[in-house]
């Protein structure tokens, strides 16, 4: 497996997620798409850490693991974000009885 293959997969994943986030009208689907984009980023970070981490940094193990630590952080933040996002979705559903994003335009005006 080469770095290029990793990056291509990540880019495809990211594009899929972006399309879903911008085009789907269901809030749950949008949240899921955002997760896909997170994971695309995770993949990129880990791939770079694996293939192109600077030689100087390989002397200490903690430096070598920078990318992986980043990925762990992103996963944690994503979990928190999903918890918060779902909370908002529930609140929205309770108030408007819909999870359709196009109808949630209260931010206008």
């Amino acid at each position, binding site marked *: 497996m080469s770095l290029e293959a990793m990056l291509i997969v990540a880019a495809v994943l990211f594009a899929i997620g972006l399309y879903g986030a*911008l085009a789907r009208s269901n809030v749950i689907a949008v949240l899921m798409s955002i997760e896909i984009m997170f994971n695309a980023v995770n993949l990129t970070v880990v791939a770079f850490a694996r293939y192109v981490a600077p030689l100087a940094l390989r002397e200490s193990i903690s430096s070598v693991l920078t990318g992986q630590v980043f990925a762990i952080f992103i996963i944690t933040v994503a979990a928190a974000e999903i918890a918060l996002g779902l909370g908002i979705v529930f609140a929205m559903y309770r108030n408007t009885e819909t999870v359709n994003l196009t109808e949630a*335009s209260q931010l206008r005006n």
Partner: protein
Amino acid sequence: MVTEPLVWAIFFLPLLSFLLITLVIRPFFNRYAVVSGYLLILALAVSLALSLVVLRQHYGGAELDFEPHTWLNLGDVVIQMGLLLDPVTSIMLVVVSGVSLLIQIYSLGYMRGDPGVARYFAYMSLFTAAMLGLVLSVNVVQLYAFWELVGVSSYLLIGFWHDRPSAAAAAKKAFIVTRIGDVGFLLAIIYLAFHGPEFAAQGLNPLHIPDIWQAAQPLATGGAVLGGGALTLIALGIFAGAAGKSGQFPLHTWLPDAMEGPTPVSALIHAATMVAAGVFLVARFFPLFQQTQEAMTVVALIGGFTALGAATLGLVMDDIKRVMAYSTVSQLGYMMAALGIGAFGPALFHLFTHAFFKALLFLGAGSVNHASGTFNMRYMGGLRKHMPWTYALVLIAGLSLVGIIPLAGFWSKDEILTSAWVSGSTVDPWVYQAVFGLLIAGVLLTAFYTFRMIILTFHGDFRGGGARELEDAEESGLPRPSSVSEEVHLGESPRVMVLPMAVLGVAAILAGYVANPQWVKSFLLIPGHWFSYYVEAAVPFDHPKTPAFNWEVALISTAVALAGIVLAYLLYQFMGRKRTQTLEVPVEIGEPEGAGVAEPTLAAEGADGPSPLHGHEPVPVAPQRPEPLERGGPIYALLSRKYFMDELYEGLLVRRVFYRSFAALTDWFDRTLVDGLVDLAGSVCRNGGRVVAQLQTGQVQFYGAVIVLGAVLILVGYLAYSAGLGG
């Protein structure tokens, strides 16, 4: 020994009084407003004492050169502030502070009871301070600042009774007309500043007055730092400013209107000091003027022309203050003409004596107004019996103005006439002859209008005063003249008013001979021609000396003056003496209880209540007399309409030419271009905002799409750019 702070104090004391009155007395202690008068009088008394010390020290030969202080350093041009103490300054300091002091004392009586008395003394303080500062200035910019300050305070004082439309209009007129001249002065200053490098090459400062004198003088190598056309232009610019301030033709129209202010204001500003500022300015730059024959000729001819022209207008005025106003314009013309023919000493000598007798004449007019309630001489008459002191003092001042030996005016006017008579080489010979002719004709007219004024006011029978004038105005359906009071109390003015007049009267008698004895080597320990020689020393360069006393000129001018007096006497004294008892106006006779409260504004308010004239003994009053000069027909009409100068300026120049061309152009420019640009900026923003506001849909996904699009665009742009660099 005179130190620099001591000299500055002469200027700062009245200024301090101004600040105290405006910031403390008027806002917090307005009930004790009269204190402001005492404060100013105290400040001026100290100023006068200091001025006398300075004069004495300076005459004694003390070195009073103080280093000027740098105020602004603008690279090529350094603007300084400092003191210029020369004979002219030390004389002017005494005249300004002395005359002002007397007038403030008089004002205590004249302005008593006026609700704005604190404001009045505040303006008076500011004016006197500005005038003293003007006289002391060593730098042209400093001088110009005080020059404008004098203009502002005169605006405030002329419009002191701003509830009268005529006073407000007169104040505006004075301000704007003098401004026209000031533009010339300002241009001259700017032009001087442009010559900075040439001045600097000689180690001179282009704004330092003694340096300007120096620059105008021919250099040993030929030519001058400031010479030829530039010198003439600068001199004419300075003269334009001086002509505006001193009411010289064609900028004289504001001065007679300025009589709308309180009478002591007229006495101080429009007789003794402010209008003298113009003459002072030309005298200050005399070393510059005398190097340019063209400018000198202009000054001499305009001065002579004004002297005669204003005198003709003085012949027909009915308002006593307007007669005096034209007389002032005319006398200032004498001074300008004298400067123009190089008679430096005589011009300032006349300025000196004129300050006393003209201030006295105005104070006399105020006193007369106090008794008769009006300034219109047609309604006066016979006041001699009721106010002997005022009569005697006005007579002295009048004789002095006419130039009857041995009063002050004779000596100074005689020196001017002699200078023109003996001629010289400052200007072409024909200019001397023209000036002499104009001035000697002016003497005849001066004598005539002065005695017409005195006879109409003080001789004959009383013609009813302000009460009658108001009745007549009502009968003929004219609007009520605002400056006329119906309170008539025939009697002498209070002592606080007569006393300063008496002091001025003494000065009007003695100032001429005592200050400048001409026949003998010395008089009362004062050396002959003391004043002229002392003042002439102010000009450090070669210039024509004051001529010796000349019997021919003295005889000619006295004969002409007497002829004028006799003519006036013949025309006015024997005419209309028939008494009629049919017209009776209640008039209070004798010393009034509330003397000093007869201010027109107050009287107008008091008229609503019970008449203050109740119980007074009615006296017979003489009927109106026809004006004998009216037989002059069209000439009388021409004169009484002031040669239609006001109509020419306001009707033709301002309303037609100015409004239709320049004002219309700027109006169009303002409405179309300036307003258009402002509107354009507004509408672009508003409409642009409307378009952009459409983008706010509230659709999160739309926003996201736009962000992505933007990011992609940046990325593509970056790639294209780096590809371009790489390629």
